[in-house]
């Protein structure tokens, strides 16, 4: 193990490490802690210049205000409406593409795979004008559906990369044996491979959920009004209304950040497995 375990070090080093840990964490999360404290601070504190002291009262009212006076509830709903179908769609498509690219040998296999990989890295701006135009022409501009369709297509690139590599690492004898038995290709996919892909599906679900929930660019490009706006775009418009009302901005930010945070803490193992795929070998 590197570095040398602290447990083997001298007593002062051990104590120093245990003291350094929480201190470094507080420094690291200082901006975040500041916002969280501000979100429960009454507005009067800010007016009186009490920015850093103990809040004069514990004010959950800020959160209430955020939900009562703004369309925050709607924004959150929209985010779910965009995120959940995208996760399902992108994973369904990439299970199929990943399986095809991992198990069949054909001439264009590697090139199709690289198409997905390369497409996954292009800057969004090169897609912006045509995708917006296409969405307008389909009559899906300013709708959740328009946003979902694009996200599904784009995320399929990354998901295919992930799924293909995952299936490739499965023992190929399984598929070969089934083929010898004369099982149809579709049934092999459905009954042999798919059940083994559960860990990959779990990891990708959390990752894609977070990516899409946090998307801001496409929300502003493909959506205009409040009725379909996800929370990232919504909070920007609220930020404009709440000039200098930092207690409300803070509460709004905390609300907007919450779902992926909860997802992360519930599914941490899968999240990190997905994110660090390939960080160990190669």
């Amino acid at each position, binding site marked *: 193990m590197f570095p040398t375990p602290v447990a083997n070090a001298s007593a002062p080093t051990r104590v120093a490490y245990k003291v350094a840990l929480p201190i470094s964490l507080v420094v690291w999360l200082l901006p975040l802690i500041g916002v969280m404290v501000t979100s429960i601070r009454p507005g009067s504190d800010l007016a009186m210049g009490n920015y850093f002291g103990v809040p004069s009262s514990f004010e959950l009212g800020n959160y209430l205000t955020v939900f009562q006076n703004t369309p925050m509830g709607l924004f959150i709903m929209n985010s779910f409406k965009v995120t959940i179908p995208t996760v399902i769609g992108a994973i369904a498509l990439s299970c199929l593409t990943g399986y095809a690219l991992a198990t069949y040998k054909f001439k264009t296999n590697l090139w199709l795979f690289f198409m997905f990989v390369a497409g996954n890295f292009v800057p969004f*701006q090169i897609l912006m004008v045509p995708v917006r135009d296409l969405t307008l022409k389909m009559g899906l501009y300013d709708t959740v559906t328009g946003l979902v369709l694009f996200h599904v297509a784009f995320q399929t690139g990354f998901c295919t990369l992930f799924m293909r590599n995952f299936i490739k690492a499965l023992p190929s004898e399984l598929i070969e044996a089934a083929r010898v038995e004369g099982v149809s290709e579709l*049934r092999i996919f459905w009954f042999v491979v798919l059940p083994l892909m559960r860990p990959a599906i779990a990891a990708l679900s959390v990752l894609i959920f977070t990516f899409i929930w946090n998307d801001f660019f496409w929300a502003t490009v493909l959506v205009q009004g409040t009725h379909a706006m996800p929370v990232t775009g919504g909070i920007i418009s609220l930020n404009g209304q709440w000039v200098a009302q930092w207690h409300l901005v*803070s509460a709004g930010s905390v609300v907007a950040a919450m779902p992926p945070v909860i997802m*992360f803490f519930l599914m941490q193992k899968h999240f990190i497995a997905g994110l660090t795929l390939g960080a160990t070998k190669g």
Partner: protein
Amino acid sequence: MSEQALAPVSSGNSPKFSGGPATSGASKTRSSKWIANQRKLAPWLFLAPGVVMFLVYVIAPIGQSLWISLYEWDGIGVKTFIGIANYIELIDDEAFYTALYNNVLWLVLYMLAVPAGLLIAIFLNQTVTGIRIYKSLFFFPFVISQIVVGLIFSWFYAPNFGLFTKLLEFVGIEGIAILADERFVTYGIIVAGLWPQIAYCMILYLTGLNNVSPDQIEAARLDGAKGWKMLWYIIIPQLRPATFIAVVVTIIGALRSFDLVSIMTSGGPYGSSRVLSYYMYEQALSEYGFRMGYGASIAVVLFAIMMVFITLFIVRMLKDEREGY
């Protein structure tokens, strides 16, 4: 939407066949011709939905953008072909150079996330009680939306009362509003971007450190290697896959920077914090007018820069594939 993990190889945890479903029961009623052709047809049927979606929404638009960049177009009316006039205009556009310069700055400074992530990973790679919670909390910034990160840092930098401003006053520097000062604004935004990016690199390195061969470390220890020497000669070479991914996602993250600029400054003051992605958006879609063609030409430049890195990455993947890992 942001940087994404990627790798030429799968992680080691390939599941074992769990004795699941029966694999017998092939349909004997189907014609033999179908069975013979199945293996050839099947991949295309599996691929069709994904490939079609990807072609329509990702690959075709790249070509369309290249094409639109040769036109003058407001997004609604008729397109007028103007050849490379948009690109010629770029050459004399001060704002374009500012954005390009800022992109370079982003790329260079963003790279700090890689060593910083490694340092934190080394710091946290211990087995004391509660360390898992520390790791999770250190990773926290990456999970939050960049929009929220932007708001947090706007608050952090706010003149008069921002925590950072107070810290500056504490060490005797007064009257600096980071986000309103042309000299510091881009650096301020990059620091905000580094925060989640360092967390990302940290998690990659933590996983990498977990898989460093203990035998080699022991052997090196017996040879008297320790500290920096151990890190440099024994550990870092073994962390190469993690480093590779960290570098790739950091480059992509730097070139994709849009959200933070958008929420923290809207490119200001006086356009001094614009990056190419934001400038493109401004030209094509914001109140500055709907210059789709000009916007597309900026996007093409950004795409060309990104293509250099994408190509390098694909070449390396191709090499790994050929070697059959």
